[in-house]
């Protein structure tokens, strides 16, 4: 039992709640910085992420723009609503990109909305938002 208590105490120290975190407003500001103020439309970009995540420390995520040549897509980006910072990653596709599809693993501090954006070569910006429920939050992000 003592070992278990010590373990719990150690966990409590490591997972203090963050002093500040992103809000829907700060996410919007980060999205505006990415788009340069263009109108964001629904569609084209596809965000593959599990709607129910057990471990927020490493969440597999794939962003793609199906049905379009890679050359038609300039950049892809990921944002979160309630992580300490709204930015997750920005991906730039070069002339030799074969397909607008990128996979990575991200952290989720809590249940929240994840947003994928695609900026096309014609500067139009498209989005998909996914609500994700997290059962074990990313300590690393949360405290």
């Amino acid at each position, binding site marked *: 039992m003592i070992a278990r208590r010590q373990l719990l105490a150690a966990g409590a120290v490591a997972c203090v709640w963050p002093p500040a975190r992103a809000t829907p407003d700060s996410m919007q500001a980060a999205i505006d910085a990415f788009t340069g103020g263009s109108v964001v439309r629904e569609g084209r970009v596809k965000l593959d992420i599990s709607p129910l995540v057990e471990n927020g420390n490493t969440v597999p995520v794939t962003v793609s723009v199906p049905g379009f040549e890679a050359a038609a897509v300039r950049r892809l980006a990921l944002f979160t609503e309630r992580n300490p910072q709204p930015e997750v*990653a920005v*991906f730039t596709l070069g002339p030799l990109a074969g397909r607008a599809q990128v996979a990575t693993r991200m952290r989720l501090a809590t249940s929240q909305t994840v947003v994928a954006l695609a900026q096309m070569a014609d500067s139009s910006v498209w989005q998909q938002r996914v609500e994700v429920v997290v059962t074990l939050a990313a300590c690393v992000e949360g405290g």
Partner: protein
Amino acid sequence: MATLRTILTAPASARVGEVVEIRTLAQHPMETGYRRSSEGELLPRDLLRRVECRFDGELVFAADLHAAISANPYLAFQLKLPRSGTLSVSWAGDRGVAHSESVQISAT
């Protein structure tokens, strides 16, 4: 100058014009700067910031990473093979971390 342990996975050969998946993994804690040690001290931020992939110098893919990317950053993306050549991936981050790795891909 710190270096990294990295893995770069690409096919050894493919047809010209074929789209192939490139996968990269770097061993790195991606310390967020929000976490505390067991002594209660704030651990300083230590992130990989930029990953770039080029084929014979021409850009394939680049990523700007933030604290919300998991430890040991994994990235998978697609290359359209133009000819035989060298694919190189470079990683750069806080504390002067810089590393690059290359692999030959032959076109068939």
